[in-house]
């Protein structure tokens, strides 16, 4: 699992990437009440916003650490957005057929060490 400076996590298996938000991001946002995800088939671009996560505090944009086509979205989140607060690393947002991955993604220890400074 790798991490972006904008608090997304990503895992890659073959040509498929899975993307979510980190537990730190979820804690910072507070209780999440709504998640707006792209449609299956949508094109994601590295660094561009692809989803909105609404918490009791604010609406936050989620930025894509990958480029590619969305093959699957986590439909459970529409009824149970709180899954992200419960376990951010299993409550993925989207699965993507990969074209490219952002350069300079962080390892877990690097992310943990500096997440509060991003």
């Amino acid at each position: 699992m790798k991490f972006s400076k904008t608090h997304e996590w990503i895992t890659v298996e073959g040509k498929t990437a899975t993307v979510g938000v980190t537990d730190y991001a979820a804690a910072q946002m507070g209780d999440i009440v709504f998640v707006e995800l792209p449609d299956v088939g949508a094109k994601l671009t590295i660094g561009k916003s692809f989803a909105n996560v609404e918490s009791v505090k604010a609406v936050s944009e989620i930025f894509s650490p990958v480029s590619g086509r969305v093959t699957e979205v986590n439909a459970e989140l529409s009824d149970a957005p709180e899954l992200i607060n419960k376990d951010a690393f299993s409550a993925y947002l989207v699965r993507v057929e990969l074209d490219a991955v952002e350069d300079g993604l962080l390892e877990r220890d690097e992310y943990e060490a500096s997440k509060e400074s991003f």
Partner: protein
Amino acid sequence: MSLIFEKSVDGRRGVTFSALDVPKYTLPPDAEYLRQSPAVLPEVSELDLVRHYDGLSSKAYGVDSGFYPLGSCTMKYNPKLCEDTAALDGFCQIHPLQGGLSAQGCLEAAYLLTEYLGRITGMDCGTLQPAAGAHGEFTSLLMIKAYFKSIGQNRTKIIVPDSAHGTNPASAAMAGFEVVNIPSDCDGFVDIDALDAAMDGGVAAFMLTNPNTLGLFEKNISKIAGIVHGRGGILYYDGANLNAVMGISRPGDLGFDIMHINLHKTFATPHGGGGPGAGPVLCKEFLGGFLPRPTVVKDKNGRYSLKDGVRGGKSIGKTRAFFGNFLVCIKALTYITALGAEGITDAARKAVLNANYMRALTSEFLPVGSGACMHEFVASCEELKRDSGVSALDVAKALIDCKMHPPTIYFPLIVHEAMMFEPTETESKQTIDAAVAALKQIIETAKTNPESIKSAPVSTPVGRPDEVKAARKPVLRF
């Protein structure tokens, strides 16, 4: 306290009608809109009703009740004089379709207010139509779109800083633009390099609040205006924080081309339940032709009338029926004329003085950023939360028990555990001292007895509404 529906008793009536003295007429049972079952209404007596709403009003809290330092909202006192003038028959007993000749006073009032707002902001012309700030933003963005269309340029993007009010990107999206966010620098100002990089030929406008939402005056405003204008873009001023600078610096002189004003903030008209808002748009001459129609004009005989097609006639049309929230405009006009040029400047100075005074007192027990602020300041409860578990939300809730309205929290988004205080010029030193003392007490208690702060407020009919459930599973009717 129970709901009016819960007070309902079958058959109880506030009014008993006398017996019918005309023949009874029954609607045909197949009449299209005939109700199939009786309306569900609370059945109460007149006294039940009066007590219910009187009880509710005693539980409401407004700026007339006490301190209301809601940052970015400018909850200044609404002078009662303004209510008096807005209640005058000459303003109230007219019809919007009445001919202009018999409504000269109303037209003159609208003309004068537009003039005064133009002088305060350094703009050339304007409209009073928009019903609130975000509506003013939307109106302005439609004008900007029409302007670029008229000169044959295809500009599809609007830049907003990450400290912007959420209405900026929302209005831009509503008007059909793509929103480009740029970060602030480490001191909270516009990141000039980021603006420079984002400001390409596809950008229609840069929307900026100045002072910004951290209560800081954008010291690089000339450079910012140079970058935006240099690439053919328009510089938009979000007037939310105009109270800090009115009578001192003018957006028009700083390089802004178009802006909205929140009369319900800067010019002391009521917010929300006290009456609708108003969000006049002011602009430079080159955008004037795109303003919503009609325009109030004055002829050489001093007579006022409503005209379409003023300044080239490229109006975007109407953005609201008739002339906006007209009586709100009367209240703002009263406020401006009562204060005069000196009073307007004085109000801004005292707003800034009050905020800095409160900021200095608060800095003794909460981090408040570095340097002097303008009309508002942002304190952070990040350390407090880390050390005691008490969050900005908890502190805000505890302030309710101290008989004051909490500040804005969790905004701007770039400060963690933010609390944004805007005392306004209308509060006395004693009020501010008492508020800071209460805040200090809460912070101290948080360190020794965090649970008591986490369970606040205890003095209200409802302590902590379940905001998560309210957002996830709202029940919107009885």
